[in-house]
């Protein structure tokens, strides 16, 4: 969904202002238009666009999937996963400007974008080139936000860089790493076969080749383990978290994207929701992923029929979050597999997002499931125990 659609449909911030999304009156959306028209309700004194929960946590944990840049575009730090995704070593980014990472035609837009973020725009998508592989440009969607940093006394722009598509270049690096030992493994195995056929299985060459087969198999398995563990979510610390706030914040990051895709958003948040012990950074990944999934599921239905319903409620001793879409729906057969790793209903999908979401929810002692809706679309629900994991 590009800018051209937006222009064609005559949608702009001003038209949006006269036609606000269907939100309750006390919902403060974090975005440029709403922060101008409405005074901030939460966050630091420095601006309405500072979200309350996530960014403070990011600042303390330096979350896996973030990238911090100064308003001038200098890269201040990289979260672990972002680092692995973009670079081979710290040398690749220390003292570098994010602008250098942008594809040439995107440098100006990126510059303007960083300025806009600093001025209050909460969210946009930018395209970066992966510096480790200059042969191929990869488009990366980044959701960014401006955060004054009280410790350093300087402002930072934080970019959340995580979605299923972003996992791909990362997976590519691993695929390359894996190919090397596999190639050697195949070669050694072939040699063993040949020597064995020639009756030379007692030779030193045979023994050494066989040793390589074993060692390289182990090495390959080890690499796969490493891939798995780096994809697995790392739950940092659990703190009482207001799920409604988290949901609002997640939505605020994607709100512009939803508008571009002509998606109507309905919020049905429970009025009094008990806090749940959660790692808000990780949980936000789940919410964002479900929201993005829902929006992509509606790409093929007419714009007038695109409705996303986001609801929260207390269900017994759990808090539940449901994301409902009016898309084409998922077949019953696929719904059973959809949380499995490497299964995807999306063309080109890696099948990592939902399985990672499931791991995150399970790490919180909760559950995630999906079901097709009667008529049209599907609903993804996750629940979290109010009393936390292990009870």
């Amino acid at each position, binding site marked *: 969904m590009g800018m051209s659609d937006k222009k064609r449909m005559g949608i702009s911030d001003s038209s949006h202002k006269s036609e606000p999304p269907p939100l309750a009156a006390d919902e403060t959306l974090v975005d440029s238009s709403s922060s101008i028209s409405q005074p901030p309700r939460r966050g630091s004194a420095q601006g309405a666009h500072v979200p309350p929960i996530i960014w403070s946590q990011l600042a303390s944990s330096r979350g896996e999937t973030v990238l911090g840049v100064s308003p001038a575009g200098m890269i201040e730090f990289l979260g672990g996963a972002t680092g692995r995704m973009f670079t081979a070593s710290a040398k690749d980014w220390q003292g570098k400007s994010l602008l250098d990472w942008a594809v040439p035609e995107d440098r100006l837009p990126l510059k303007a974008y960083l300025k806009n973020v600093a001025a209050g725009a909460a969210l946009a998508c930018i395209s970066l080139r992966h510096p480790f592989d200059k*042969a191929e440009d990869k488009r990366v969607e980044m959701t960014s936000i401006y955060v004054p940093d009280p410790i350093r006394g300087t402002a930072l722009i934080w970019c959340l860089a995580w979605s299923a598509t972003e996992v791909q270049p990362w997976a590519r690096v691993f695929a*390359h790493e894996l*190919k*090397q*030992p*596999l*190639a*050697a493994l*195949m*070669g*050694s195995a*072939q*040699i063993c076969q*040949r*020597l064995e056929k020639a009756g030379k299985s007692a030779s030193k*060459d045979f023994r*050494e*080749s066989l040793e*390589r087969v074993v*060692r*390289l198999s182990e090495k390959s398995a080890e690499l796969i383990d490493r891939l798995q563990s780096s994809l697995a979510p790392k739950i940092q610390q659990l703190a009482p978290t207001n799920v409604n706030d988290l949901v609002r914040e997640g939505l605020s990051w994607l709100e512009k994207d939803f508008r571009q895709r002509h998606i109507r958003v309905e919020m049905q948040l429970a009025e009094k929701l008990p806090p749940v012990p959660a790692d808000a950074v990780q949980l936000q990944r789940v919410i964002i992923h479900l929201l993005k999934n829902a929006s992509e599921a509606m790409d093929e239905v007419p714009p007038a029929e695109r409705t996303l319903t986001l609801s929260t409620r207390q269900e017994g001793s759990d808090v539940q979050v449901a994301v409902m879409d009016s898309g084409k729906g998922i077949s019953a057969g696929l719904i059973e597999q959809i949380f499995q790793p490497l299964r995807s209903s999306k063309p080109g999908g890696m099948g990592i997002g939902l399985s990672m979401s499931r791991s995150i929810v399970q790490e919180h002692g909760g559950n995630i499931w999906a079901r097709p809706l009667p008529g049209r679309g599907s609903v993804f629900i996750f629940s979290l125990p109010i009393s936390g994991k292990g009870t």
Partner: protein
Amino acid sequence: MSNVKPTVCLIEDDADLRANFKVSMKGAGIPQVSYASAEDFLEGYEQKNVGCIVLDVRLPGLSGLELLERLRSENVLIPVVLLTANADVQTAVKAMRHGAVDVLTKSAFKEETLIERVREGLQRWESVKKFQSERAAVGPRVATLTPREVEVLDLMVAGNKNRKIAEHLGISTKTLDIHRANIMRKMQTKTVADLVRWRLINKADSSGVMPMVS
């Protein structure tokens, strides 16, 4: 020219692949040597009588393609078999342009294929060497020809009959016969076939690309 069997040389940073290569070449009876980087190779290869290079595209430091380009620009014409992790067209095209024997995808080739390509490379090196030594021998002989003799030689190489050559140059066939005898004597041969081949070798560039015969 040395009589020692030419060596195949692997440039590959992965130690396991080097170990495999050593065993494979031993099985095929081909002397081998290997280097972990292009830089190491450049330092040592001249002493090794290298007749074929098996080259990893992705190397620390100077990349495989960069090394290939550099060798070609320095007129080092040793045949090269490229190894890549991914079969990509761009690399293949570049490699072929620099006269690589083949591009093998690391995870998808058989031992026999590698040995076959290496043999092909070594063979090609033999003919390159033969060509280069002939060319080196012919050059000084051509240099002894007078401009008129060169003119006659080229008309002969182009396949013209004596009468036509004489007519073209405005000389008698008798005079032409004297020119021809001088050319044969200076070029040290008795056959027109040698003359033609040598003149083409003499005109070709060092990689063996023949000129168009007009």
